[in-house]
């Protein structure tokens, strides 16, 4: 007996369309590993949220080799790749352009939560993303270092969003509960336009503001006290970003140095991430040779007393013009395959809760890993689609403002051709100008460019083209300044990173996210290699000293490795020293996508 979905699958010949390796931000987008040549099989491309790419790659590999993928007229070949839920939602609305950069047009879309499908349908005005069968579950929790949770009464005292918000708004911060050494309450929260955890926390934030647990309305979002409440919560945010792994990796890195309690006090993540962190694998994926390390300070999952929202990981088989009946039928086969008990057992190993009730909840979803299998006991209702869309709009107005310095490399190597006659600098300029639209008018943005011998042989090797100032006042000046750039000389990376950091620290504004976006395509090249090691050490020490401790004034340096020759090791170290994030744009064609991901931090 062959097991078939709604219709017989015919053999559709697809060439070996190579999955675009999207580069993107670390974890934002990429393939799921080499699954081999699909041959003449019907190819079912699948865009999945980043936290489950390892699991789905394994399941797809097993499926492709199984009899379940054999059909009367050939075979089905499932090919998952990672795509942040919010990014995929926007791409579907846009008709999924440019597959070389964005990944092949998916047949199956598995965002982290069904709410994204509702947003897509609402924005399109039609059902392109029909309800999908949940694949596995994980609730939104508030991850806190165990000592901090204990200071709030965990595990005996229920803790809710309201308690978190109250502490976040208390000017005394942790001193109000007897721990001045932990400084202010710092909240980690991803950008709700890209991340499910960010979206769900934002929904919960508005529910907490209204005292409701269901029936959130557009009118609720407009009430002055709700706007003020949300603005106050957002003011405690460290920075945003497109993926929660940035926070978890930074927490883990600071844990090594014993400073994790002053990086972030609480981060909105999925329960599965707490398990991964405590098992010594903060981003949920072990690189080759990476050995799990138990953190010094474990995290615990707080299940908000008001209720929470679930990531239900639906399999959405898209109803779009690029999906054929054969592909849809092939997708249905894979959907049935992953629901089988033996495959649902595999989701446990990745820290998720199975959706199949015949598979009991078991380790690692256990107290030993900081989570409670008997929680949550209450849920918040997912708002209606039109309210979800309005939540995103409201957040864009109420999010914490940013103060950002863009530092662009205009060294000679930026003049190398990237693609279709464009130089790397051409593409970077275009991407940077486009990304300016993602700031809100009150955000302060400035621009430096750097290369050696900018002003003859005299220092400095950088030029302040636009001082940091509200972008709403004159976005055109920034655009013009970026547009005017052309490639020049060497790459004084260390010197300029240090100078930019010092300048931003001098003008530090505690009410804003203070950050630098540092793009370079090369290695430090200031004409003197003898002092490079000292320069690098001094720079990292300078960045760490300013970024850690209860009274620190964090200026986050988000770095972008641009092209194949960028010094990625150094740029990662710079980002880590400031508990920011490094982004990989080794494929210059992805620079626009990467800029979008970087700006999602603000």
């Amino acid at each position, binding site marked *: *007996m*062959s*097991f*078939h*979905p*709604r*219709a*017989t699958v015919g053999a559709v010949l697809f060439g070996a369309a190579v999955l675009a390796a999207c580069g993107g931000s670390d974890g934002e987008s990429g393939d799921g590993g080499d699954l081999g040549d699909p041959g003449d099989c019907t190819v079912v491309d699948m865009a999945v949220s980043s936290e489950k790419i390892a699991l789905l790659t394994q399941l797809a590999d097993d499926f492709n080799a199984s009899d379940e993928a054999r059909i*009367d007229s050939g075979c089905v070949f499932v090919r998952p790749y990672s795509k942040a839920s919010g990014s995929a939602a926007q791409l579907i609305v846009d008709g999924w352009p440019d597959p070389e950069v964005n990944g092949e047009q998916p047949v199956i879309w598995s965002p982290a939560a*069904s709410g994204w499908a509702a947003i897509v349908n609402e924005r399109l005005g039609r059902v392109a993303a029909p*309800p*999908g*069968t*949940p694949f596995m*579950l994980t*609730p939104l929790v508030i991850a806190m270092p165990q000592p901090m949770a204990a200071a709030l009464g965990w595990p005996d005292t*229920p803790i809710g969003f309201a308690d978190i918000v109250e502490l976040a708004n208390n000017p005394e911060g942790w001193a109000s509960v007897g721990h001045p050494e932990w400084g202010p309450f710092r909240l980690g929260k991803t950008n709700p336009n890209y991340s499910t955890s960010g979206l769900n926390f934002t929904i919960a934030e508005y529910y907490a503001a209204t005292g409701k*647990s269901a029936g959130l309305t557009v009118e609720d979002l407009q009430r002055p006290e709700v706007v003020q409440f949300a603005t106050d919560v957002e003011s405690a945010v460290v920075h945003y970003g497109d993926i929660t792994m940035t926070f978890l990796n930074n927490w883990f890195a600071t844990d090594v140095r014993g400073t994790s309690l002053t990086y972030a006090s609480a981060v909105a993540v999925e329960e599965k991430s707490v398990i991964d962190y405590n098992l010594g694998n903060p981003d949920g994926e072990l690189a080759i040779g990476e050995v799990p390390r138990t953190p010094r300070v474990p995290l615990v999952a707080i299940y908000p*007393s008001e*209720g*929470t929202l*679930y990531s239900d990981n*639906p*399999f959405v088989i898209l109803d779009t013009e690029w999906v054929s009946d054969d592909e849809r039928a092939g997708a*249905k086969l894979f959907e*049935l395959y992953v*629901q*089988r*008990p033996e495959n649902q057992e595999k989701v446990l190993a990745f820290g998720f*809760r*199975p*959706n*199949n*009730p*015949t598979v*009991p*909840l078991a380790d690692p979803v256990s107290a030993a890993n900081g989570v409670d299998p008997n*929680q*949550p*006991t*209450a*849920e918040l*209702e*997912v708002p209606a689609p039109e309210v979800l869309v309005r939540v995103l709009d409201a957040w864009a107005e109420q999010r914490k403002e940013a103060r950002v310095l863009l530092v662009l490399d205009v060294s000679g190597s930026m003049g190398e051709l990237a693609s279709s006659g464009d130089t790397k600098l051409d593409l970077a300029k275009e991407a940077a100008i486009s990304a300016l639209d993602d700031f809100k008018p009150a955000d302060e943005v400035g621009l430096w460019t750097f290369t050696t011998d900018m002003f003859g042989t005299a220092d400095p090797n950088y030029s302040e083209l636009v001082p940091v100032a509200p972008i709403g006042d004159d976005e055109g000046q920034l655009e013009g300044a970026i547009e005017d750039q052309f490639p020049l000389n060497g790459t004084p990376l260390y010197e300029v990173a240090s100078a930019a950091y010092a300048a931003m620290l001098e003008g530090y504004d505690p009410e804003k996210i203070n950050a630098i976006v540092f793009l370079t395509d090369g290695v430090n090249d200031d004409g003197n290699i003898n002092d490079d090691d000292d320069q690098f050490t001094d720079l990292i020490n300078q960045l760490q000293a300013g970024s850690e401790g209860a009274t620190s004034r964090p200026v986050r340096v988000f770095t972008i490795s641009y092209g194949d020759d960028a010094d990625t090791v150094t740029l990662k170290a710079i980002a880590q020293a400031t508990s920011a994030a490094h982004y990989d744009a080794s494929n210059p064609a992805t620079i626009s996508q990467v800029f979008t991901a970087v700006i999602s931090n603000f």
Partner: protein
Amino acid sequence: MIVVKRLAALGAAVALIAGALYARDQWIEEDESTAGTTSATVLVCAAELAALCSQVSADYPELTVRVDDVGSSLNSIADDEMWFTFTPFPDIVSQTRERTRQTALEYAVSPVASSNLAAVSLTDRGAVLAANCGSAVEWRCLGDLAGTDWSTIGGDASWGRVRPAFSPLSSGIGRLGVASAVSGFFGDAPIDVNNPDFIGWARRFDRAVPASSLAGSTAVGTIQVRSSLLDVAIGAAAELTPSAAPRFTASVVDPPARIDLVLAVPAGVRAPSGLADALAQVAESSGWLAPGAPGVAGAPADANTVVATSQVWEDLT
């Protein structure tokens, strides 16, 4: 020599008789019993029963199994497709075909397994529910409680509101649950869709847990993996898995209702030998009871009731 000839004649006679018997077994009897039939090639499996179909699929390589929502199958099942579903959906298809196409589609229906229709809840909530609505849950009472704070009826404040839920109407179990509920609301009286009490009662169910929340799963399936979403799941008691059972109570409903699994084979189609038995075996190993087993009460809903109540529910919610 004569002896040899007689032995040879005897051997030939035995061979002829054996050949005749073989021919009768292989061809003649089969032709008599299956005259005008074709072998089934497709088994349509109700989505809630996909796991059962999956378990028997390897033993029937000649069959293609297609998993489909009952709601879709009602409109799309082909004349030569077998159907593993619930009573009375084959009857509904037969009646619909007769009415719309003036062509009969008769099924030979084999009972496979049964279960009580039940209200499944966490044990602590089940006790409070029983105290308010009876150990056999009264439908009118359950609907009246939908959306009420548990704390006002003897439950814990942390449980929030009472959230009963049916499976989606696209599913067979969803339609059977709704049929039982609406019938239970009206009792012996005829269904009156304009009755304001009924309208409010029905809408309280939907407001408590919007049907869209359960997309892709049944209510009983959902409560076992995500008990924070709903408090009372209406469905087959057999859906409760052994590993989850200790945490939950499955209360029968009042009046009692039965859910029957059936293998429906269209007239003119021959089912593979032993298929119904194989399905019965895996169903029983999954918690379903044998047809007629003690412990299963009530009767399955009839076709007219299911059609009418599904339509009413769809209009109201």
